[in-house]
């Protein structure tokens, strides 16, 4: 395995500005030429999630307080937020084959191995894998691995891994493969289940999550900036749905796995009907959909250890 390239923890704002410049300079949807992913992972030290960040996060999702006694294990989505700038740095590298702006988050699979508390120094490693054809462009997987601050990342064993996630992204309109290589989609009829909840998302839901996550991707901020990126309205962050789906359900001792697959984006403002179903003692399945149009926004699963 190629050793990881150490970097400073980047600032998301400057990465987005650079991406916007690049998009303006060259192409947003033109076909790329590079057909391979960067080989070397990147790694950055993270000083630890602060009490303020945890509090902002839990205020947004109306969860129980991180009091350090009954709740100290931070939510998976907050760990993902902390690692996201490193993943973005990798995706902004010149040898990354897909344009950063206009990337669509397709799915996420997370294994939250061990609890991570406020103030724990971490190392965030990001790598890319499995570049593959998609009927609407090219997809790739971005892996985030989180290690303790003092671990030797290149030689660290699986027992040191605190958290790992695989996010699948689509570079929409960037065809690095011939179109017939992509598997044709299987559309199944969606019959909404009995709802157990309703999310009422205001026009500012994207801006609120951006304020907590630092992810100011313009597609989530305003109708105008979203239009520039090809959406009719601002859409909510995929990880917002993941966070809300998981809130109050992740075990304090971690060890759980969860996944989410995104379908129709959630336009803002909007309402999302939500259903949580217990499959067995360890498994819960979730689905979110538009109650008016009966279109599915996401499906998810949580498996306790």
């Amino acid at each position, binding site marked *: 395995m190629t050793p990881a390239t150490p970097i400073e923890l980047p600032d998301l704002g400057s990465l987005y500005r650079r991406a916007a410049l690049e998009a303006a300079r060259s192409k947003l949807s033109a076909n790329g030429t590079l057909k391979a992913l960067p080989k070397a992972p990147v790694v950055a030290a993270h000083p630890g999630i602060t009490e303020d960040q945890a509090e902002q996060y839990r*205020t947004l999702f*109306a969860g129980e307080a991180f009091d350090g006694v009954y709740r100290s294990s931070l939510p998976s989505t907050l760990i993902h937020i902390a690692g996201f700038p490193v993943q973005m740095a990798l995706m902004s590298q010149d040898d990354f084959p897909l344009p950063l702006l206009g990337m669509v988050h397709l799915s996420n699979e997370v294994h939250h191995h061990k609890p991570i508390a406020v103030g724990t120094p971490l190392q965030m490693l990001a790598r890319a894998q499995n570049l593959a054809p998609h009927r609407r462009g090219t997809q790739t997987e971005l892996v985030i691995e989180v290690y303790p601050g003092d671990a030797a990342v290149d030689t660290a064993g699986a027992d040191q891994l605190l958290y790992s996630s695989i996010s699948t992204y689509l570079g929409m309109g960037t065809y690095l493969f011939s179109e017939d290589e992509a598997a044709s989609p299987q559309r199944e009829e969606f019959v*909404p289940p*009995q*709802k*157990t*909840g*309703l*999310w*009422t998302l205001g026009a*500012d839901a994207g801006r609120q999550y951006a304020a907590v996550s630092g992810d100011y991707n313009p597609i989530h901020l305003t109708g105008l900036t979203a239009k520039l990126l090809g959406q009719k309205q601002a859409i909510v962050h995929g990880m917002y749905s993941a966070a809300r789906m998981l809130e109050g359900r992740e075990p304090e001792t971690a060890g759980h796995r969860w996944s989410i697959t995104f379908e129709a984006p959630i336009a803002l403002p909007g309402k999302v*009907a*939500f*259903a*949580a*179903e*217990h499959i067995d003692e360890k498994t*819960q399945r979730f689905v979110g959909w538009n*109650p*008016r149009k*009966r279109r599915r926004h996401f499906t998810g699963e949580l498996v306790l250890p």
Partner: protein
Amino acid sequence: MAETVRDAVIIGGNRIPFARAHGAYAKASNQDMLTSALNGLVARFGLQGQQLGAVAGGAVMKHSKNFNLVRESVLGTPLDPKTPAYDVQMACATGTEAIGSLANKIKLGQIDSAIGGGVDSISDAPIVVTDELRSILMEANRAKTMGQRLKALAKIRPGHLAPQAPDTGEPRTGLSMGEHMAVTAHQWEISRQEQDELAVASHQNLAAAYDEGFFDDLVTPFKGLSRDNNMRADSSIEKLAKLSPVFGRDLGDAATMTAANSTPLTDGASAVLLGSEEWADSHDLPKLANFVDYEQGAVDFVDGAEGLLMAPAYAAARMLKRNGLTFQDFEYFEIHEAFASTVLAQMKAWESEEFCKNKLGLDAPLGSIDRSRLNVTGSSLAAGHPFAATGGRIIAALAKLLHGKPGKLGFISVCAAGGQGITAIIEGR
């Protein structure tokens, strides 16, 4: 009952007529309404200048300035100001919980007399500032210098200024109570027809009771109103059938809940006088019924394991078992009509062999309830439902129904937000 416990006697009740929100009581506060209900009770039973054991009650929607709502109301009545008073809050079960716990104090000999009740106003609901604005104002409040204060206040944005009105959404699901009930009604296959029939019966029973003078000694006028103004004596199945569903609309054709078979938002207040047998006798007061027992219940509704308003189904089973009773032992049933489907779903659950076996752990179903004994003087669909005032309305009316029927029993069920509920038993004397 153990021999050391004495009877808690329901002496009488009083309420003001219930008014549809933003109507007759638009300018009345919770304290105005509760004080008026208490004044009527004091006048009816000659309690002027008397020191009672306790007055308890509450409001579901309460301004922060009303932290001592019941005490402040008591000070506005001719009761002896040495009468202690305190606030209770258990959503729509507030009034029943207040009265039940006062009855327990009387039974134990801690107090000899009490008033329990409740009040709610939608028209004067507490509108608050946004969390963001409150946080900024508090920061400014904590500031030690003018500079710090201005720095804090400079954070205020136009979006922070929108007033926030309370809503009936469950905080943990985001679903309104009506939407929760629509799910339960669908699961129990409660038909539109059944719901409309129950609503019509509620209006007709309430109107008949008013016409017979049943409420003459239970209601005192307020702000020009002498009857509940939601009541429609001419309500009919045909009229109700024309309405479109307002809850569960995503069920399409299977949506059944309309504005007529759901309770309207309402303003109003109620109060019930309780005492020991000796206290009632020594004050030459009537003894309508005994408050026998009550039980709280709660269900796991958040991920839909149970319906939000189904807790009374569970509480009833435990309460009946403890008292060695069955539904066949009761003369009257008062099941609070939060929605017509709430009443029907509870009754279907008690009839269901599967539910009673698997959920209530019973060998046999609790059985069906004779409709001619159900909500015979009308209930919330007709009268309206000022949340915390409903318990007092039900208990006073049921005690009066059972008066003169010694040993006859009345059953009460009240559902509440947060997946909670209360059931109670009273016994005529």
